[in-house]
C-alpha cells in the first residue's frame, strides 16, 4: 500500500532540493537540442560539397544519432515537467501536513510519527472539576483528537507519501527509454496502495461511483480508508457527495479547503508582489484586453498578464479564508462545526455548507438557506443565526438539534438586478433537494426531525426544491420574509410522506409588518424583466400556517424598512422563539397571525 510519510519526514523533506536537479536537466536538454539541431542542419546541407560513400555514411549516422538524441531530450523534457510539478505537489502536501500537525500540537495534542493524535489529560485543564465533568471533558477531547486532528493529519501524511511516490514514478517513467536513474526522493519508502478492485476500476475509468444517493451510500460504507483516500486523490470534490456520512464529508472537504486556500494564498502573495512593483496597475484593464496591455512598456506586459492570472487564481481567497475560519473548531459551541460542502469550481462563488454539529446523530436537523447577497465570505453572520436557531430549539425541547448553513448555490449577488431573476433559485433547487435526501440516507438511529428554513430569496430556492417534479425530504418547511417561494400555494409543494392536501400542516411562513420584501409579488408585470417568484406565502390564498414576528424597525413616512428584513433572528424576538418551536416540533406553542 502507499506508505504515508512520517511526521519527521514531513518536516525533513526539502522539495526545493529538486530545483537543482531540474535546472541541470533543463540545461542539459537545451544544450543537446542546440547541438542536435546544428548537426542535423549541417549534415543535411553537406550533400553539395561532401559527396560519395563517406559523406552518405556520415549523414546516415548523424540522422540516427539525432533520432536517438531526440529521445534523450524528450526524456529530459518530461523529467523537467515531472520534477517541477512534483516539487509543487510535494510542497503543498508538506505544508498541509505540517500545518495540521502544528495546529494539533499548538492545542496541546500529541502527534505520533504515524499521525495518531492523543488528547491532553482533561484533569490538567479542569483541576477543580468533578469526576463526571472530567469524564465528559476527556471524552470530548478524545473525540476532538480523533475527528478534528487525527484524520486530517493522517490524510495529509498519506497525500505527502502519495505525492512523493507519484513524483518518483513520473521521473522514472520519463527516463524509461534511456536507462535507469536514481530519483531524488527514493529514500522514502513508497508503494502502491491496497485498493479494492471496485475502486481500482473507478480510478481506471472502467466504472463510476453511483449517482443515486442511497446506492452511493451503500457502496461508500463498504470502502476502506485506503479506498476512500484514493477516490479523493482522484476527485478533490468528493466530499460534496450526498449520501456520504457527515464525518467523511467534513474530513475530505477540509483537506480540499486547505489545499485550495493554500493555492489561493500563494497566488495572491505573488500578485501582491507584482503589484508592489507596479502600483499603477489595476483590474479595470480586461485580462484579454491586449490593446490595453500593449500600452504598457513592452518589458512589463508579461508581468502584467501574470498578475492578472494570479488575481484570477486567487479570486476566491476571501470566501475560502472565511470558510476556513468558520469551520474551525473554535466556535462558541463545544461541538466542532462540520464542513459538509466546499466547492470552488462549480459556481461563480465558493459554495459552502457548514453545520454546527453532526447532523447524522442529531435529533433535529435544520437546513438554513440564506438569500440575496449571501456567500461564504459573509458566513460568520449566518453562523450566528445558525447558533441562535440551535439554542432556541434546545430551549424549546429539542434534545440534540443541529443547524446547517446551506450555501450550496450561487445566491443572487444584488437585490435590484439579480434577485428579480428566478434562475438562481432554479439552479440551486436540485442541489438542496439532493442534500436533504443525503441527510436522510446517512442519518443514524431514529430518523431526525428535518426542517428546511429559507430566508428571503432563500425561500424561493426552498420552494422550488419541492416543486417542478421534485419531492423534498423534510418534515417542515419554513419561509421567512419571502418574495415568493416559486409556487402559488402550499399545495404545490411536494414533501416526502405528506399526502396531497395536507402540506399546509408542514409549511410555515412569516413576515414582519415593516418588512417590504413580501411586497415583491406586486412588481412582476409592472416592471419589465422582473420574474415572478409566486404568491406571498403569508397570504391566506397560499394556504400555509403564518406565524407571528415582531413588527421590526420602521422608518418615518413609508414605515417599511430594509432593516426589518433581517431582524427575525434577534434573540428574544417573537420570530426566533416561534422558529425554535417549529424546529422542535411544537406547533401548538407557536403564535400565529
Amino acid at each position, binding site marked *: 500500500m502507499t506508505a504515508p510519510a512520517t511526521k519527521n519526514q514531513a518536516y525533513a523533506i526539502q522539495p526545493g532540493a529538486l530545483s537543482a536537479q531540474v535546472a541541470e536537466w533543463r540545461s542539459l536538454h537545451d544544450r543537446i537540442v542546440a547541438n542536435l539541431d546544428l548537426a542535423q542542419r549541417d549534415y543535411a546541407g553537406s550533400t553539395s560539397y561532401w559527396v560519395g560513400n563517406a559523406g552518405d555514411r556520415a549523414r546516415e549516422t548523424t540522422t540516427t544519432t539525432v533520432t536517438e538524441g531526440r529521445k534523450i531530450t524528450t526524456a529530459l523534457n518530461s523529467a523537467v515537467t515531472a520534477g517541477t510539478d512534483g516539487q509543487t505537489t510535494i510542497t503543498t502536501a508538506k505544508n498541509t501536513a505540517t500545518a495540521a500537525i502544528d495546529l494539533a500540537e499548538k492545542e496541546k495534542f500529541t502527534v505520533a510519527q504515524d499521525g495518531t493524535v492523543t488528547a491532553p489529560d482533561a484533569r490538567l485543564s479542569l483541576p477543580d472539576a468533578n469526576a463526571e465533568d472530567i469524564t465528559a471533558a476527556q471524552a470530548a477531547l478524545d473525540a476532538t483528537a480523533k475527528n478534528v486532528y487525527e484524520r486530517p493529519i493522517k490524510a495529509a501524511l498519506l497525500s505527502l507519501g502519495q505525492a512523493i511516490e507519484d513524483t518518483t514514478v513520473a521521473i522514472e517513467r520519463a527516463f524509461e527509454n534511456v536507462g535507469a536513474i536514481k530519483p531524488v526522493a527514493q529514500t522514502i519508502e513508497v508503494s502502491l496502495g491496497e485498493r479494492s478492485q471496485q475502486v481500482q476500476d473507478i480510478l481506471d475509468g472502467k466504472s463510476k461511483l453511483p449517482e443515486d444517493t442511497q446506492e452511493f451510500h451503500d457502496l461508500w460504507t463498504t470502502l476502506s480508508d485506503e479506498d476512500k483516500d484514493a477516490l479523493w486523490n482522484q476527485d478533490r470534490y468528493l466530499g460534496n457527495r450526498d449520501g456520504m456520512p457527515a464525518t467523511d464529508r467534513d474530513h475530505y472537504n477540509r483537506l480540499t479547503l486547505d489545499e485550495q486556500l493554500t493555492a489561493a494564498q500563494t497566488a495572491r502573495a505573488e500578485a501582491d508582489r507584482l503589484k508592489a512593483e507596479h502600483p499603477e496597475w489595476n483590474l479595470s484593464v480586461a485580462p484579454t484586453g491586449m490593446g490595453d496591455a500593449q500600452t504598457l512598456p513592452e518589458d512589463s506586459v508579461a508581468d502584467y498578464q501574470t498578475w492578472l492570472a494570479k488575481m484570477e487564481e486567487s479570486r476566491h481567497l476571501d470566501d475560502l479564508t472565511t470558510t476556513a475560519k468558520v469551520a474551525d473548531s473554535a466556535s*462558541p*459551541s463545544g461541538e466542532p462545526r462540520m464542513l459538509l460542502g466546499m466547492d470552488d469550481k462549480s459556481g461563480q462563488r465558493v459554495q459552502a455548507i457548514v453545520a454546527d454539529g453532526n447532523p447524522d446523530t442529531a435529533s433535529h436537523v435544520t437546513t438554513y438557506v440564506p438569500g440575496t447577497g449571501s456567500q461564504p465570505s*459573509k458566513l460568520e*453572520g449566518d453562523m*450566528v443565526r445558525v447558533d441562535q436557531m440551535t439554542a432556541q430549539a434546545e*430551549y424549546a*425541547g429539542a434534545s440534540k438539534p443541529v443547524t446547517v448553513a446551506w450555501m450550496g448555490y450561487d445566491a443572487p449577488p444584488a437585490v435590484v438586478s439579480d434577485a428579480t431573476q428566478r434562475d438562481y433559485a432554479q439552479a440551486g433547487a436540485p442541489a438542496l433537494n439532493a442534500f436533504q435526501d443525503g441527510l436522510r440516507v446517512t442519518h443514524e438511529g431514529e430518523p431526525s426531525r428535518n426542517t428546511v428554513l429559507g430566508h428571503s430569496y432563500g425561500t424561493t430556492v426552498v420552494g422550488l426544491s419541492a416543486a417542478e417534479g421534485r419531492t423534498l425530504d423534510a418534515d417542515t418547511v419554513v419561509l421567512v420574509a419571502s418574495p415568493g417561494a416559486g409556487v402559488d400555494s402550499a399545495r404545490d409543494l411536494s414533501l416526502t410522506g405528506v399526502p396531497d392536501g395536507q402540506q399546509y400542516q408542514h409549511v410555515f411562513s412569516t413576515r414582519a409588518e415593516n418588512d417590504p420584501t413580501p411586497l415583491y409579488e406586486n412588481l412582476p408585470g409592472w416592471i419589465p424583466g422582473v420574474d415572478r417568484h409566486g404568491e406571498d406565502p403569508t397570504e391566506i390564498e397560499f394556504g400555509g400556517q403564518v406565524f407571528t414576528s415582531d413588527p421590526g424597525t420602521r422608518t418615518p413616512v413609508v414605515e417599511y424598512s430594509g*432593516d426589518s428584513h433581517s431582524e427575525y433572528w434577534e434573540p428574544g424576538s417573537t420570530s426566533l422563539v416561534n422558529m425554535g418551536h417549529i424546529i422542535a416540533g411544537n406547533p401548538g406553542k407557536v*403564535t400565529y397571525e
Partner: protein
Amino acid sequence: MHESLTAVDAQFKIRAYMSEVLAELPAGAALSKKPDNPDLATTKHRRPLPNPCWEGNVQSSGPRYLSIGYWITGLPAGSTAEYFERIPAIWQNKGWATETNDVSDVAKAKIPDGFGLQLQDAGKGDGSLSLTGFSPCLPESTIDAMEDDPFTIPHP
C-alpha cells in the same frame, strides 16, 4: 453602543444578573448547561453568542451584543412549573420591566441599564426552564477576549 463596555465585563454582568435571580430561588437551585430532564439538550454553546447589532448581510463587522443561556436546575420536584410565574414576579420586585407570552411560554425582563433576561418553558410538561441573558451592544474588538462560561453557576 456602550463604548466603555467590554465583552468580558458584559459576560460577567449577565452572569451576575442571573445569579441575582438565582439567589431568590430555593437553596438547591443552580444554573447549568446540563438540564435536569435527560430528554433535553445539554446546551451546546459554552461561550456567549456575539449577535450583530446591525441588520442585513452587507455589513460583516460592527458592534455586538451577547447572549448566554443556561438551564435552571435543582428546583423542588413537582413545583418547577410554578417558577415560570414566580421568576417574572421576582423581576418585577427588582423594578425590571417584564413581558410574558403564555402561548409560547416565554417571559422577558428588561433591565434599565440595557441588559435583559428571557425565561422559557421547554414544553416538556415538567416545567423545565431555560434562562437566557443579553447585553447591550458593545465594541466588537473586545469579543475575542471572552472565555467559556462556567458549566454550572451555583446558588449564591
